[in-house]
């Protein structure tokens, strides 16, 4: 059903091609609602008007689009794949009617400019799918397209930048998961939801309540910490007391993940919330959103602070002792339950920071964390289960793999590439890059 604008329009116009598809779904196809006679005697069917806004094949999330037409007024935001659609319950007499699609210029990435008007008119036709294109500059596909490298911006360097950026965020979430795994043995499938809560809370404080980004981010981290602590206090601690097996706990966490994820969907809806704002900086000839550069720098600070905590403080040392052997740690006078409580708080803080940064990096939605969960797990497994340094190294490898793979394979396979490499590494080195041999059992 998709069609694309011919690439031969000339490279000058290919910066961002915003494709609009208006496709019509008739009563007999699988997707359409059952035709029901309306009071006027017309047959009402569901028409879907939709499209995709892409930057050289990669969807751009968070672009605001409004659609007006007979019986329809809708304000939409493109999702993380750049897709948008609106259902227009209308009747057959509107078949030749025109719909006006308007793109909100201010929501475009800062370095892209729209050429011409921001409004397009689409005419429905019974058989055709109509399309209209928005042309934008600048000229080149830059980082995301392997086919059209730009002279000024080396795609390898751009992918490296993005990979480091993403890897650092992933590292904090992965250390959080790994800390909990190391001290309690729990593979927590609800970990992704902590990332989501971090991202969505930032959106609420920043965009809904109008706080500045920094206080909004701090409050979001506080909320994730509270969620992490409550999770341990009300679910995992009682289950540990009940001596529930680790596999059972893992399946409980799968259930918890579903409950929290769909609760978030109920509250926030299924659309993507736009968080990114502000200027871009030019570093080594590469333009990067300033907020991402700052996030990366902060991630490094957080990771260094965390490693100092782990190696220099009493509690940090006790944490490593519990992680190595809980019974032995208990026999040397360490209060294991207290350490586990502290570990949950630290893990939640780290994951909360990761959530805020990931929200700023790829926008926030009810399933942001769920999409990243497998990558977080992959990072922890790749680095070596249960070690913090391993989780950080694994996350950097995964982050770089995800972004660098787009140089050679289609971008919609980048996550798959990272997971395949993880499986291959486990083949030759099952204990992970930094793992200890005895852990693999």
């Amino acid at each position, binding site marked *: *059903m*998709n069609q694309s604008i011919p690439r031969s329009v000339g490279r000058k116009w290919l910066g961002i091609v915003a494709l609009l598809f208006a496709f019509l779904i008739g009563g007999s196809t*699988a997707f359409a609602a059952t035709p029901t006679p309306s009071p006027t005697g017309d047959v009402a069917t569901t028409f879907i008007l939709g499209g995709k806004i892409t930057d050289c094949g990669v969807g751009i999330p968070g672009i605001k689009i409004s659609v007006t037409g007979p019986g329809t007024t809708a304000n939409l935001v493109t999702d993380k794949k750049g897709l948008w659609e609106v259902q227009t319950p209308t009747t057959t007499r509107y078949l030749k009617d025109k719909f006006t699609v308007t793109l909100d210029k201010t929501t475009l990435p800062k370095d892209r400019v729209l050429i011409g008007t921001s409004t397009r008119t689409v005419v429905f036709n019974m058989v055709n799918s109509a399309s209209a294109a928005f042309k934008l500059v600048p000229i080149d596909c830059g980082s995301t397209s392997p086919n059209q490298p730009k002279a000024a911006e080396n795609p390898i360097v751009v992918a490296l930048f993005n990979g480091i950026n993403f890897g650092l965020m992933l590292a904090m979430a992965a250390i959080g998961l790994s800390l909990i795994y190391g001290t309690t043995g729990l*593979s927590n499938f609800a970990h992704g939801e902590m990332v989501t809560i971090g991202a969505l809370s930032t959106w609420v404080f920043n965009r809904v309540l109008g706080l500045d980004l920094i206080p909004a981010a701090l409050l979001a981290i506080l909320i994730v910490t509270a969620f992490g602590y409550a999770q341990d206090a009300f679910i995992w601690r009682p*289950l540990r007391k*009940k*001596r*529930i*097996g*680790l*596999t*059972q706990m*893992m*399946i*409980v966490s*799968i*259930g*918890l*993940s*579903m*409950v*929290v*994820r*769909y*609760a978030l*969907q*109920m509250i926030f*809806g*299924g659309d993507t919330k736009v968080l990114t704002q502000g200027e871009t900086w030019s570093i080594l000839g590469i333009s990067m959103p300033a907020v991402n550069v700052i996030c990366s720098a902060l991630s490094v600070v957080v990771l260094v602070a965390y490693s100092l905590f782990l190696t220099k403080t009493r509690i940090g040392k006790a944490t490593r002792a519990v992680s190595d052997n809980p019974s032995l740690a208990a026999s040397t006078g360490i209060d294991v339950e207290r350490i586990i409580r502290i570990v949950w708080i630290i893990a939640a803080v780290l994951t909360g920071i990761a959530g805020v940064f990931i929200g700023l990096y790829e926008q926030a939605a009810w399933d942001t964390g769920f999409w990243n969960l*497998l990558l977080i*797990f*992959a990072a922890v*497994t790749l680095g070596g*289960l249960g070690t913090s340094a391993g989780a950080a190294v694994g996350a950097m490898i995964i982050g770089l793999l995800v972004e660098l793979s787009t140089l050679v394979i*289609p971008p*919609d*396979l980048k*996550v*798959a590439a990272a*997971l*395949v490499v*993880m*499986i291959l590494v*486990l*083949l030759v080195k*099952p204990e992970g890059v930094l793992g200890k041999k005895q852990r*693999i*059992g």
Partner: protein
Amino acid sequence: MDLILGNAISWLFQPITAAYALAAIGIALHFGFTGLLNFGQAVFMAVGAYGFSISVKFFGLGFWPAVGVAVIASIAMAFLLGIPTLRLRSDYLAIVTIAAAEVFRFIVSTTSAQPVTGGPQGLNQYSEGFYAMNPIPVGHYKFWVWDFKQDDLFAIAVSWLVVTFFAVLLAILIRSPWGRVIKGIREDEDAVRSLGKNVYSYKMQSLVVGGLMGTFAGILFVLPTSVQPGNYGTTLTFYIWTILLLGGASTVIGSIVGAMIFWSLLSLTGDLLSTGVDNGTITFLTQNQVGAIRFMLVGVALMLLVIFRPQGIFGNKKELYFNA
């Protein structure tokens, strides 16, 4: 009200329910009897669905050769997953299977594979060969609030025949000497190894057989509908696990009854809530939120089951396997 009830009851015997039951029987063998944490049953179902439909659509094979291709692909997939992981601790199999399932889903849904797999749109219209074998005369068959076409009845009958076949096969297998070995592996791998059994090989056999059940489930799943790549995400696997744990992981009948209860309840709660929203009884929800509530209920059910009745409805606590 009759319609809602009829809908819920129809889920007791729909082909989809049969497919989920069969996939759950596969994990019952993996997890309930062998102790393998297969979190990627979705990949075996996807191999069945895509192996079958691509053979028909792309290579133009008939029904039976297409089933053969799916079976071979499924065995290959089991080896691919098992060789690196079965010697390692159980959580490695979990992470590798879940990752492999996602990788498979990404690959079949990429737009670059569109000519073969249909990309994000998936595939449809590959079932002519199947329905050509239908002996039921053409017509509408009406019972109570239901109205079946001959093809619907055929799909239902074949689905449950296949489920019954595999359920009986599993019941025979676990009572055989082979079954005693795999249950031994579940209880204590080292003890079985010390008796001179090749634990790795037995685990692999279990993975292959349970995976095949998943593959046949995948074929049953898509015969009456279409192949949609979005269906084969981790959620599918988690649904099947919920079904398995609902009925009882170490039972054969549990998976079947679990699937029936799961789908009927899901349909009933969904329909009741939707009707409530439609006629204004429920004011605090919108239609979109009804969908989310159903998923939340599945999550709550999964948590409560595992905590309070880990052996499931039919399970025997003594036979329960969890690596406590």
